[in-house]
């Protein structure tokens, strides 16, 4: 197996084209899968030497996060804490300190586990994914990307994410079997545009409910443009239970998850309320 350490994105793309290698981000998923021989790459292209991929910055319209930003980088970043709270919250509970120090947001998408902790917040926050391949750079809503199979065509590199600065409030909650080191059994991310005392545009994404994290259109419709109060919360709970019921069908986990999601949704909303000082 060959091992490359390109110094720039262009170099990485060229190597991917000529070597048919796999991109290596933090490695916390890929190394394990190689160890178990589930994946045996011809070549690895280690992205750890491309500093620009690790940037987290604010532009006029977006918070931009490079694909090689680790969960620790994001979880200790003031900008993300203030403007993408849902993602920041997910970063505090993902894996363990050791995993958070190594695992990256790009790798989280590339591996695309159903329980990937970073994806529901990015979906709820309306993130765009920035991709690059031999054919050039492309930007598309993460929600659309997650509907593609395969997720990425060979040789496509995840450059990063652009989170539009639309949603003032966002929250996240996850259910795991224990506090640390638990793979999410269920996660809920919510983003909300506040319009006086009303909820303007609302987006809700679910993780570990089905094959990949997804954004719920029906929840967005039911919860947007309504008075943000207790009955809004109760409406959200009954709706989210319906979404989980529909998504899981008669899977073994369904009876548990469609009940449990009520509590997880409630917690996600509670985490959102804490930022805005909405509680009187």
């Amino acid at each position, binding site marked *: 197996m060959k091992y490359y350490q390109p110094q720039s994105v262009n170099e990485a793309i060229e190597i991917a084209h000529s070597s048919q290698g796999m991109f290596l981000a933090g490695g*916390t998923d890929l190394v394990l899968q190689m160890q178990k021989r589930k994946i045996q790459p011809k070549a690895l292209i280690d992205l750890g030497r491309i500093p620009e991929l690790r940037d987290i910055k604010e532009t006029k319209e977006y918070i931009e996060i490079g694909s090689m930003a680790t969960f620790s980088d994001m979880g200790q970043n003031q900008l993300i804490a203030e403007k993408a709270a849902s993602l920041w919250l997910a970063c505090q509970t993902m894996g363990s300190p*050791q995993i958070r*120090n190594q695992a990256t947001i790009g790798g989280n998408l590339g591996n695309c586990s159903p329980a990937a902790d970073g994806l529901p917040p990015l979906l709820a926050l309306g993130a765009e994914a920035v991709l690059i391949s031999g054919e050039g750079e492309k930007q598309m809503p993460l929600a659309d990307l997650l509907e593609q199979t395969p997720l990425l065509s060979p040789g496509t590199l995840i450059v990063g994410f652009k989170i539009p600065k639309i949603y003032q409030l966002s929250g996240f909650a996850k259910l795991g079997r224990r506090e640390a*080191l638990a793979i999410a059994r269920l996660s809920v991310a919510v983003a909300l545009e506040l319009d006086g005392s009303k909820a303007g545009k609302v987006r809700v994404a679910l993780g570990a409910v089905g094959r990949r994290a997804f954004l719920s259109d029906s929840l967005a419709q039911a919860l947007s443009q309504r008075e943000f109060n207790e009955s809004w919360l109760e409406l959200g709970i009954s709706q989210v239970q319906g979404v989980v019921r529909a998504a899981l069908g008669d899977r073994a986990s369904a009876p548990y998850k469609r009940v449990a999601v009520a509590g997880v949704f409630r917690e996600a909303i509670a985490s959102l309320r804490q930022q805005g000082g909405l509680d009187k």
Partner: protein
Amino acid sequence: MITIEFSVNDKTYVLEVDPRERLLDVLRNRLGLMGTKEGCGEGECGACTVILDGKTVNSCLILAGQVHNSVITTIEGVGNRQSPHPVQKAFVEVGAVQCGFCTPGMVLSAKNLLDKNPHPSDEEIGVALSGNLCRCTGYDKILRAVKLAAEEGKQ
């Protein structure tokens, strides 16, 4: 094979390695640093914890190539019988070691915490050690030992 250069416990090494080798294997098999343990081998238990460029990581989930030009501290670089690290001293004093398999990882996570935050709260200690599992002690004595080490540091 690839060539990597890195520093382990203040000593520089240049090694030819198979790119599939994990940092854990390099430390144990090539450098003979047996203090780094392999527990689960899947990043769950933290027995293989080392400090890589100032951050704790699971060495079972990192490939040798990824640590090229990096600085690593293993348990062998933390203290020794003659002059134990304050965390190690506290572990002995409190009785935070039973079978000992998790201890190197625990000590490294605790040391790294105290290096960055010499006066952590109980919660901060809990979070810092949350990636290290112990099946013997029930954690209470380990948490007490880290607290003791932090208090000793204050004096």
